[in-house]
């Protein structure tokens, strides 16, 4: 099999994931995640989509929330579980091997917060729509949707500049992880499209990284 070179690299990806990401983002991701999680309150039910090694899920659990983290990558989840154990959070956070396509098994109006970091950019177009629709269904009226992800910048100049900067990084990331990501376009419109009301949007990194907070409206408007 000629793909063996790439597989070899992939093989070691989950173990190196945390460190690799920190190096690639110069620690900026950490502060973005801290800001997002500041919306989570003690005792709330939280769902983390594509939780990976648990960056958002564990932060939320540390704030006293009851968290479920889902991901399709069992090796990532193993690391996440280990981290939960090390942090003494095993009782409040639960990691499940499950894709966003299985969100239809979740109860309606169940979560106070549905969150996701850097996962939407790995989804196919159909999955992204599906994930948002399901998020709208399973979050309680008045509950929050918290997203942090790579987005396509709004203006042409920034898009071009970003594209140039991104290319070498994308190649490194590709060699590293064997996957490419697609920066999400029109994320706010998509979030509003399924019925959420936007609360705040913060753009960083030349408009290519978005932190988004949205609320599911309570029955008769807000």
């Amino acid at each position, binding site marked *: *099999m000629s793909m063996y070179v790439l597989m070899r690299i992939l093989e070691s990806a989950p173990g190196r994931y945390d460190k690799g990401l920190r190096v690639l983002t110069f620690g900026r991701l950490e502060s973005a995640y801290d800001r997002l999680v500041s919306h989570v309150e003690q005792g709330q039910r939280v769902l983390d989509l594509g939780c990976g090694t648990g960056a958002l899920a564990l932060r939320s659990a540390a704030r006293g929330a009851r968290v479920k983290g889902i991901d399709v990558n069992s090796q990532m989840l193993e690391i996440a579980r280990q981290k939960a154990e090390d942090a003494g959070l095993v009782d409040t956070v639960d990691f499940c091997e499950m894709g966003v*396509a*299985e969100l239809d098994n979740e109860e309606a109006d169940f979560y106070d917060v549905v969150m996701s970091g850097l996962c939407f950019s790995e989804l196919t177009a159909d999955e992204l729509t599906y994930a948002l629709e399901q998020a709208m269904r399973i979050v309680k009226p008045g509950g929050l949707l918290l997203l942090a992800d790579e987005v396509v910048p709004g203006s042409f100049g920034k898009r071009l500049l970003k594209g140039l900067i991104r290319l070498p990084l994308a190649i490194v990331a590709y060699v590293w992880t064997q*996957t490419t990501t697609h920066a999400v376009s029109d994320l706010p419109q998509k979030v509003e499209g399924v019925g959420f009301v936007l609360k705040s949007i913060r753009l960083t990194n030349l408009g290519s990284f978005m932190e988004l907070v949205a609320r599911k409206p309570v029955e008769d408007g807000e």
Partner: protein
Amino acid sequence: MSFLGYALVSIVGTLLRLVPWSSQTGLLEIGRPDRDSPVLLTCNFRLTVERVRRALRGVDAYLLVANSRGINVWCAATGGLLTNHDVLSVLKTSGIEDRVDHRQVILPQLAATGVEGRVLERKSGWKVVWGPVYADDIPLFLDTQLKKGAGMRQVRFPWTERLEMAASWAFPISVVLALITAVFWRHALVSAICVVWVLALVLYMSFPLYGRWLGSGFRGGAVLLAVFAVLWVAAMLVLASYAFALGYAPWGEIGRWGVLTFAVLGVMLIDLMGSTPLYKSGLHEDRILKVVLDEGKCRGVGYCEDVCPRDCYEVNRAQHSAAMPRAHQCVQCGACIVQCPFDALQFQSPRGETITPETIRKFKLNLMGKRVER
């Protein structure tokens, strides 16, 4: 897509075969499908998608394109990049569930190393049928009530595919070589590239002459070495006599050609077996694994026979038993082990260690080291 477009996709896809090339995932309509039309699934390697569509001309069906990260079915499924999740995802999110009344999806047989029919059925209610290895056989497969003969189950290595393989090695090597020679050895650039293509073509076109003696172990290695030696000596003789015929034969120049052909042949031959669908990659000789059958657990249901790309199995449905009369052809893909519903199959290493179906389902081939548990 027009013929010209298809030809272009084919050529680019072949030359860059070793590089992933993604196409849009989701639901495609082939012809005019209705609520009872068959649902087929493939990977999102661009070349594959175009080939499947072409093979399906005249058929009314739905084609689901699952996210295999732009890699072909076999490599993606075996390497853990086309998984249960990816198939489940396209079934659930593409909208196909609203378009048909049945719940039966035809998957390419070569996906059986990484996608588990039973898990999908349990999680989604969709029943998996393992279709033919080659897209060209799909129309016949559909016409014959999904009966799949031995011919449709086996991988082949016909000259067309060997030609493609030759091109997909020669092209990237030429690119690298062109960059190197452009700097260090400019006047030899064109000749060097010609030599690469000729060597690749000779190597793959003459495959039937030596192919059947390849294999694992000492003999296989010796055959590989012999092929290498013959090709290298032949290349050197041709080049040297050409030089003498021109009456210009500086030893330094001939020496450089010797190193170049040696290196090029080395790169192409190091994983020759892995470049064919007929053998397992020769690069991990440490893992000569054997499939062992626990007759006590086997109920003769025949999933193994249905998914084995090398036709190793013979299942006796009347006596509810299976046997492996052609075990020597095994490429250690693991498909049979992954699919057996009774866990009657597992790998065994020469040292007697076993690798359970559970481990193989979890780690596939991408965690090569982990397959033999230490």
